[in-house]
């Protein structure tokens, strides 16, 4: 991960650009733009990232096989922000990729996407099956808008699990904890042995949020946390189920189960410490092995288990990364062809073999370190990470839930104070939304 350069006055600049490009667009003739023999692709990857290299290989083959030129720009994670500015100006890319909620947030609510139902019906070049055939319908929850339109075709899947080193913790490998009680018993063992139970880079408020949001989903079922924060009266917070989930999280801080310095370190210091054996567990997406691998001891064996249950729910929190086509794209046909082309088993496989990530195709072998996550992806029902709150109510999530959650997870507020404050702030928030 890298720090991206942000310039002061960026907002003013963006407005200026919007103004200038909008003015320019009014007077320009768009008829010459785009053609079916080329497409522009703004990728979320930086050129040196493994995923970029996999996609670049596919692009090369695609250009040779079809004669369609792909003008790829490796823009990095800012690509959707740039898309938003481009949507005002008219010079939009034909193909973009990102996590589902980032794309949904930017172009689905405002109807700026191309429905991809036809792409799902397309036959994958070189295979006797359609895109829809190749993908399980489990991922529909990430790829489909509320009105049933498809806006995304996934090519990478992320499962969120609790990671550990099976070499150091063979008992956990033999008998992974299923319930919260099982899990806290393991934390108590770690503490008794003088180890830290949980590694958490709490300077990433989103990582801390994974814990509490999943606990709330466990208590309320998938969609329950999202419903809780959607309620303008904020009535659901003071219920026994919510209290139980929040108390479970509060106890992690109260029991000193987090690694020392988790609240005063800079990412990725703590996850590195975890890879070096300073803490037992790390709750993280399936990128954890690739991100921490270079710091782990050679005998480190990456294993993981599903977030323990706090009630009946045992869904696997997940997310997908995929392709979308902006609504005004001129090269939508060419982009659709590329999407179907990339979903071919041979071309998608390097996402697993070279980039060490999971793909949405069940017939592609998975990297050994992701075997547990993959098994859960296949066997469990899925829920959205943060229950979709990060995407659906991002302003509330960033300004209200995440800061309060950090206070809970660092022992600064009690469950009672948390409930009182979040309910009050949630009511204010919704009142302000008009």
């Amino acid at each position, binding site marked *: 991960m890298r720090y991206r350069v942000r310039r*002061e006055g960026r907002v*003013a600049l963006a407005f200026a650009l919007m103004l200038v490009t909008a003015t320019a667009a009014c007077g320009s003739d768009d008829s010459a733009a785009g053609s079916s023999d080329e497409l522009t692709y703004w990728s979320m990857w930086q050129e040196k990232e493994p995923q970029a290299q996999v996609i670049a290989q596919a692009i090369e083959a695609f250009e040779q096989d079809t004669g369609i030129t792909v003008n790829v720009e490796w823009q990095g994670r800012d690509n959707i922000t740039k898309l938003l500015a481009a949507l005002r100006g008219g010079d939009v890319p034909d193909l973009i990729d990102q996590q589902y909620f980032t794309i949904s947030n930017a172009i689905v609510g405002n109807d700026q996407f191309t429905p991809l139902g036809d792409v799902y019906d397309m036959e994958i070049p070189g295979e006797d099956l359609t895109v829809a055939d190749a993908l399980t319908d489990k991922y529909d929850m990430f790829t489909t808008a509320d009105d049933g339109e498809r806006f995304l075709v996934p090519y990478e899947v992320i499962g969120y699990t609790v990671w550990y080193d099976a070499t150091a913790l063979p008992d956990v490998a033999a008998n992974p904890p299923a319930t919260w009680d099982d899990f806290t018993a393991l934390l108590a063992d770690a503490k008794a042995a003088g180890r830290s139970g949980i590694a958490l880079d709490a300077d990433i408020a989103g990582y801390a949020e994974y814990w509490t949001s999943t606990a709330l989903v466990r208590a309320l079922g998938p969609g329950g946390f999202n419903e809780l924060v959607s309620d303008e009266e904020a009535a659901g917070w003071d219920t026994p189920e919510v209290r139980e989930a929040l108390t479970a999280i509060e106890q992690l801080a109260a029991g000193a189960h987090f690694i020392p310095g988790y609240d005063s370190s800079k990412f990725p210091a703590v996850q590195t410490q975890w890879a070096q054996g300073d803490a037992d567990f790390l709750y993280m997406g399936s990128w954890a092995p690739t991100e921490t691998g270079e710091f782990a001891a050679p005998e480190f064996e990456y294993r993981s288990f599903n977030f323990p249950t706090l009630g009946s729910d045992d869904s696997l929190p997940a997310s997908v990364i995929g392709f979308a086509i902006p609504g005004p794209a001129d090269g939508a046909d060419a982009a659709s062809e590329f999407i179907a082309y990339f979903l071919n088993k041979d071309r998608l496989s390097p996402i697993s073999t070279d980039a060490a990530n999971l793909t949405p195709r069940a017939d592609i072998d998975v990297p050994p370190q992701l075997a547990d996550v993959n098994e859960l992806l296949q066997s469990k029902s899925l829920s959205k990470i943060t229950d979709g709150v990060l995407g659906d109510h991002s302003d509330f*999530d960033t300004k209200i839930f995440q800061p309060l959650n950090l206070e809970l997870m660092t022992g600064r507020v009690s469950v009672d104070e948390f409930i009182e404050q979040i309910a009050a702030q949630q009511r204010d928030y919704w009142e302000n939304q008009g």
Partner: protein
Amino acid sequence: MALAFRNGTDTRRHDGAGGMSAFERARRRLYLPFVIPALLLHLAFVIGPTVAALWISFHRWDGVSPMEWTGLDNYTALLKDSTFRTALVNTLVILVVAGLAIFVISFALTMVVREMRWKSFVRSVLFFPHIVSAIVLSIVWGFIFQHNGAVNTILDRLFGTEPIPWLNADNLFIMILVGTVWLSTGLYVTIIMAGVDRIPPYFYDDALLAGASAVQRLRYVTLPLSWDVISVAAIYWTISSLKIFEFIYAFGGTTNDLPPPGVWNSALFVYGESFGGRSPSYLFGYASASAILMLVLFAFLVVGLRRMMRRDPIEF
């Protein structure tokens, strides 16, 4: 010794065209061709976007869909938004607290450095943090002060102290203030020293002969004779403090994540409500309203500061 108070009103000429020399008339004619390109650029890139931001601030707008007129709703919502109030307070704390620290330290350093042998070398060293990107410095700063960072390691080796949580929620903003002072002081030392260097040494010699202490020399010689530079520097700090962004962003946040809202200043607020974060809010109307409010507030502050710092210019 020659000290003369110049009457500020004399500096502007109100001669009619008849009283102008040929040179003066030629200069007047050149005025427009020189000013127009800059004015056009300023209109396109500063005034235009500002007017656009004002217009956008009266709407609910996600950046793409048609704007929805909401009148003053964004402004009233801002006043009730505790994150905005925090950002406002943080902005003012940076302005006042960090500003005072920067000026006090800059003066102290100026007084010390101006009498040193390796003056220009020291000045370059002091200026160094200002040249390096704030992002690079903030990353280094973060690694030095984190739980297992250099500072805690040194403290442990020397005194056996427990690690101090420099970067936790209680201390993060204080560290940002300290970092901002450290980043900016070199620049203000340089500006103030340039003003102080202009003061002829015989004033100091005279003051010394009269038995003035260091503080008296500062009060009766340095401050009055470099006042115009100080007032410009103070206004420059006021404006630039509003725009501080990179240091807080990179120091408090990570690749995709904004710093915690508790340390946002107004620039972070604007960014956080528009493009910022793992899942941006795209509240362009709301962000614009906060930017406009801050623009108005700081315009008042700058005008007030100018009035407060106005002195008759001294020629020497």
